[in-house]
């Protein structure tokens, strides 16, 4: 379970440009973080990952504290063990799909890393992409590699920042199935950021809605299947 209780202000030229004040917990399922653009969804993800630092508050994942302003604790990004799927995927452009996944694989030795990468490629049925570099892949293919790369590091939580915004509608449904499949397999919290209503309706055992930096809705679904 992830608990986030943080405040962060962005100041520009002395004026408070945007401030975020959120308080929520996320289950070990898929939590959809929805809201219009500018609501602070990506900021929340970046705070959890440690890319940004909150002004006040606490961020905890199970028994591990990521951030605690009271105790001056701020775990470095490298030690938080989060899998981050970027909106633009941020696949390393000079590495092949296999090398991208192997890069962060949590296992010693180059051949073991590559073996792990191939295992994940097989799991997602994308072995044929093995030797391609990102420029030679479609958006949907890059998205799969990005998810596989995040999982290879054996994260304790996966953060997805509008992962399907660059993918066509037909591919989208299939990729959502794969994200659900990955979550069911790993049983760790997935935080899924989207501004797309259709995606939000289709995914998640919990829905959190943000507006101008504040949580305006937080719903937990006991039995997701009955809703669909």
């Amino acid at each position: 379970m992830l608990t986030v209780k943080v405040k962060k202000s962005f100041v520009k030229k002395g004026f408070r440009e945007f401030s975020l004040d959120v308080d929520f917990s996320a289950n070990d399922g898929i939590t959809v973080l929805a809201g219009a653009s500018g609501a602070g969804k990506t900021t929340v993800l970046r705070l959890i990952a440690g890319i940004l630092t909150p002004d006040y508050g606490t961020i905890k994942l199970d028994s591990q504290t990521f951030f605690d302003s009271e105790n001056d604790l701020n775990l470095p990004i490298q030690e938080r063990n989060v899998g981050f799927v970027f909106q633009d995927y941020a696949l390393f452009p000079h590495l092949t799909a296999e090398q991208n996944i192997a890069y962060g694989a949590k296992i010693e030795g180059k051949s073991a890393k590559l073996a792990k990468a191939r295992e994940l490629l097989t799991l997602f049925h994308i072995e044929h992409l093995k030797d391609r570099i990102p420029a030679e892949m479609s958006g949907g293919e890059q998205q799969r590699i990005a998810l596989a790369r995040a999982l290879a590091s054996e994260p304790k939580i996966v953060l997805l920042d509008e992962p399907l915004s660059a993918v066509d509608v037909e591919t989208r449904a299939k990729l959502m199935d794969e994200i659900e499949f990955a979550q069911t397999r790993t049983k760790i919290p997935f935080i899924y950021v989207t501004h797309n209503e259709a995606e939000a309706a289709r995914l998640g055992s919990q829905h959190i809605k943000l507006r101008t930096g504040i949580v305006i809705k937080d719903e937990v679904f006991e039995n997701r299947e009955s809703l669909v």
Partner: protein
Amino acid sequence: MIWSAFQLSLLVVIISTAIVGVAGLAFAYLIAKFEFPGKELLDAVLTMPLVLPPTVTGYYLIVLLGRNGFIGGFVYDLTGWSFAFTWQGAVIAAFIVSLPLMIRASRASIESVNPNYEIASYTLGKGKFETFLKITLPLAKRGIFAGLILSFARALGEFGATLMIAGNIPGKTQTMPLAIYEAVASGDDKNAQILALILTAISILAVYLTNKISRSHIYG
């Protein structure tokens, strides 16, 4: 004269370019990625040799590294050796004048790397140094190579600052540009011509390589 000047130039330029490569990259990374007090000043000071007359740069090198200089005096008292009138002095001159070219070219290309690639690497558990080596460096390599070639060419053509700190001693500190000057001054047209042709050929090659690298198409 030609052969010894050629050998000396090569020695000086290879050593100075190697140091410029490492130091220039370190400074470029520091300036591109970190905010610290005095950053603008550091950047300005390192860029100065690009705009200063080389003899002025050379003058400061004497003030700093000469037998009575701030650093040079200390070194001389300690070891009895000085940068003045040595080929090592020529290396320092070549290094100082070409460093800003390396810093500028590599800083620009380091800054042009999408920061999400580096952040992605951090989330995958990699430290800053490993990320720089495995992600930033390969993605910025075009600008870095261009900086190295420009630095090499600039170091090869260095005249003014070298003359000030290292002098013009044939066989000891007389590099190709200095040898040309002496050949012309003493009416030795043939040697001047040969040296000028060698330097022109190397310069054309440098421009050709720089253009080729900056036009090469990488990673879509």
